[in-house]
């Protein structure tokens, strides 16, 4: 009896999984994206209603995992559109010939600085600046000035205050490493001979803490958010302070955290969408790319994914306008250069900081 009941349970459970497998006849557009992708239900529903396209979202880990999976499956892609590849991984995706070029008519509004691929194999959708964030209360209580440059971080007054992410496992960690490479150079023979590795050695001297991922750094080690951390300086995003206000218990009088946006301290990450080579729904895919650049979607993004729109016609929500600082001179780096040196820089960083 019991065996039969167990078998029955197995069959029922398998049947319960079945509807998820069923597909209908209308065009279903499969969008491959990373775990952080978000949008408003009604914005997405409006697109589906207007076009008759059903959007199916497939998530595959963080941006790095997603790109690697796409490269591995390029002969037989997992979907029609891929969203979320950023400039630090873009070359890997382009070199693997993942995308079909498409120049969206809406691109004409988008500033040149975001269009990194002249062939339009990928289309920029949003950007976010990786910047130092600080715990406002800590700096006020201890009457400490905010650091104004990367070099300031090696000052003993900031001893033991900073937590960064490991560039080998975290995307903001890699972005921050690139800032230091850009600012201090990687070439020992140049000018003063002080390279990014010397800077990192000085940071280690100043008791920098390395966490392996953003969640642990931000919620586990940083003192400015919800966790029990003790470090008042963290590598996060320029959009984190408005998020702290937006997700606060009650609207605070002042933002509990702030971001440091001084020139040469932030790295600009740009996220792209591309149509996957091998799609059977080219037209629907192009419609989806246009949709991502549309004002509706672009205005929806900030509060969904805490990123900034590339379409200048999109207005920022109030909490962003009030609490988000946009760095005037963020660091950008040639994507080919990033790709050529990523491994070498990470390796050298690991030797200097962790061993």
């Amino acid at each position, binding site marked *: 009896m*019991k065996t039969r009941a167990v078998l029955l349970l*197995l069959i029922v459970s*398998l049947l*319960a999984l079945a509807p*998820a*497998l069923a597909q209908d006849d209308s065009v279903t557009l499969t969008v*491959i994206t990373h*775990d*952080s992708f*978000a949008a*408003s239900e009604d914005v*997405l529903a409006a697109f589906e209603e207007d076009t008759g396209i059903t959007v*199916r*979202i*497939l*998530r*595959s*880990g*963080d941006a*790095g995992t997603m790109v*690697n*999976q796409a*490269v*591995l*499956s390029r002969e037989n892609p*997992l*979907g029609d559109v891929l969203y979320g590849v950023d400039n630090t991984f873009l070359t*890997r995706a382009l070199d693997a010939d993942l995308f079909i070029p498409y120049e969206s008519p809406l691109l004409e509004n988008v500033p040149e600085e975001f269009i990194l691929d002249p062939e339009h194999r990928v289309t920029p959708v949003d950007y976010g600046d990786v910047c130092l964030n600080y715990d406002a209360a800590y700096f006020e209580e201890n009457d400490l000035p905010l650091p104004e440059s990367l070099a300031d971080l090696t000052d003993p007054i900031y001893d033991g205050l900073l937590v960064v992410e*490991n560039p*080998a*496992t975290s995307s903001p960690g*890699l972005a921050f490493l690139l800032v230091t490479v850009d600012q201090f150079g990687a070439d020992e023979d140049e000018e003063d001979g002080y390279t990014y590795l010397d800077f990192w050695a000085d940071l280690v001297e100043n008791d920098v803490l390395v*966490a*392996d*991922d953003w*969640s*642990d750094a931000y*919620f*586990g080690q940083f003192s400015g*958010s*919800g*966790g*029990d*951390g*003790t470090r008042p300086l963290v590598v*996060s995003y320029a*959009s*984190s302070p408005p*998020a*702290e206000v*937006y*997700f*606060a*218990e009650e609207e605070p009088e002042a933002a*509990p955290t702030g971001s440091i946006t001084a020139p040469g301290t932030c790295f600009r990450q740009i996220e792209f969408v591309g149509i996957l080579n091998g799609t059977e729904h080219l037209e629907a895919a192009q419609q989806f790319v246009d949709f991502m650049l549309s004002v509706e979607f672009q205005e929806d993004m900030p509060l*969904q994914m*805490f990123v900034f729109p590339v379409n200048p016609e999109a207005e920022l929500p109030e909490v962003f306008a009030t609490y988000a600082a946009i760095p005037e001179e963020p660091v950008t780096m040639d994507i080919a250069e990033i790709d050529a040196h*990523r*491994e070498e820089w990470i390796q050298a960083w690991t030797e200097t900081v*962790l061993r």
Partner: protein
Amino acid sequence: MDRNRPAVRPGAGALRHGLLLVPLLFLAVFFFYPLLSILSVSLAPDGQLDLSGFAALITSAYYRDTFIFTLWQAVLSTLLTLGLALPGAYVFTRYSFTGRSTLLSLAILPFVLPTVVVAAAFTALIGPQGVLNTLVMGLLGLETPPIQLQHTLTIILIAHVFYNYPLALRMISGYWANRSPRIEEAARVLGCRGWRLWWEIRLPILRPIILAAAALVFIFTFTSFGVILILGGPRFATLEVEIFRQAISLFNLPMAAALSLVQIGAMLAMMAVYTRLQSQIAGELQAAQQIARPPHGFREKVLIAANVGLMILLLFLPLLALVERSLTVGVDGFTTRYYQLLTVNTRQSILFVPPIEAVGNSLLFAVVTMLLAVLLGLITATLLAQRESRLANWLDPLFMLPLATSAVTLGFGYIIALDEPPLNLRTSPLLIPIAHTLVAMPFVVRSVLPALRGIPPDLREAARTLGASPWQVWRQIDLPLIRRGLIVGATFAFTVSMGEFGASVFVVRPETPTMPVAIYRLLGQPGAANYGQALAMSTILMVVCAVSFMLIERLRGAGMGEF
């Protein structure tokens, strides 16, 4: 009756051998095929063998150190876990006391929690501003926190014991309860006491299950990932962590494949030793009977209190810290707001996961995983228990392999291997319980196998002589004796799925978010409320698991004695 026997036996034999193909086929399709696919793509990308990864392995001191650290921390963790779990198992087998079965059920809870959440719990307790440091600093008037465990080997070991103690405790006590106490009683009568009793009687009796538990704990800690990454920090790396870095950040697949093979090789070597030790054992089980009794005297009560105290300190205090944090806002304000927030989709976001849906998805996957793992694990264990077959010695490690295989590697294997009908499962929700089952099966096999091997052959022979069919023999002889092991195995299979172990993290997932997925999503965006909600969701995960464990325990059925 004699006329019937020749007709029945070959038929039953064929059926049995046919059945045994099922787990092998499952393993072949969902493990070996994807694994070999990804290894061949990694090691021979253009059809030519590229062994540069291996060359780097041999020449680099870093990889040698990584290997040594991986091995060293796994040995330490295993010894520590067993050293603590053995006295615990003794107490739980021998004495009956209030709350015993509840404690035993709840002990598995740590197993389901994501490492980030466990790290948060540890920080709340023993972090620089945690309860313990604040207390000691206040008592001794210290300026700086005296306990600094963050990113040390100590915290890695504590976390490994936290996760694995329940596993060893449950396996050992489940087996012990089915062992006849007569040998021990005889030894006592003959004057055997204290350490000699442990060394000469108990340990040899328990050897099969201690070895089985040790094998599982070892593999689990050898392939440790989250604990090393989050609690150990970036200065520590196991092979599993290094495979992740190579495969994801650097996309150096030849290197990742080489490291995966080293990891698998090390596990096979360990299993060879295990199989050798295991095969020298003759056990004898008897149907469950009441061997637990209330404690007499001061010493026994202290023993119970010490072990229960350890469990509370090690397992339940961190869990309670989480629950407490999920109900607190600011310094010490009580709130249920995080739980309320969980149910409201404030941003109308598609990222939002209604808790009911997350609970439903998690339970669905976990039940499917448990049933699949029990079914396949039982068949496998039955095959492996036939000791005369040398084949069993070869097959046994194969079924442990999924546990020792890097999740990234297998996840990538699914992407490239399962992409054609009829196996076009890459984007199917079915892949999730399948990936969980691969990790869950070894738990069932290891929990059941020692018991199956301990069944005296003459017992089955006698039943057969009396005319019992193979099914009846299994139902009347085998099942009652393996039931406890089976419940332990099933519970862990369920838990493996609830905690999202294995390759399911690295496959593309359709929109069927589970509780761990919801926790990760909440922890993926800044904001104190997201953190609070993540802890609230973790608490719900624990409650759902606790209730499920108690229901699974009930499956044990009446008349099986209490346990």
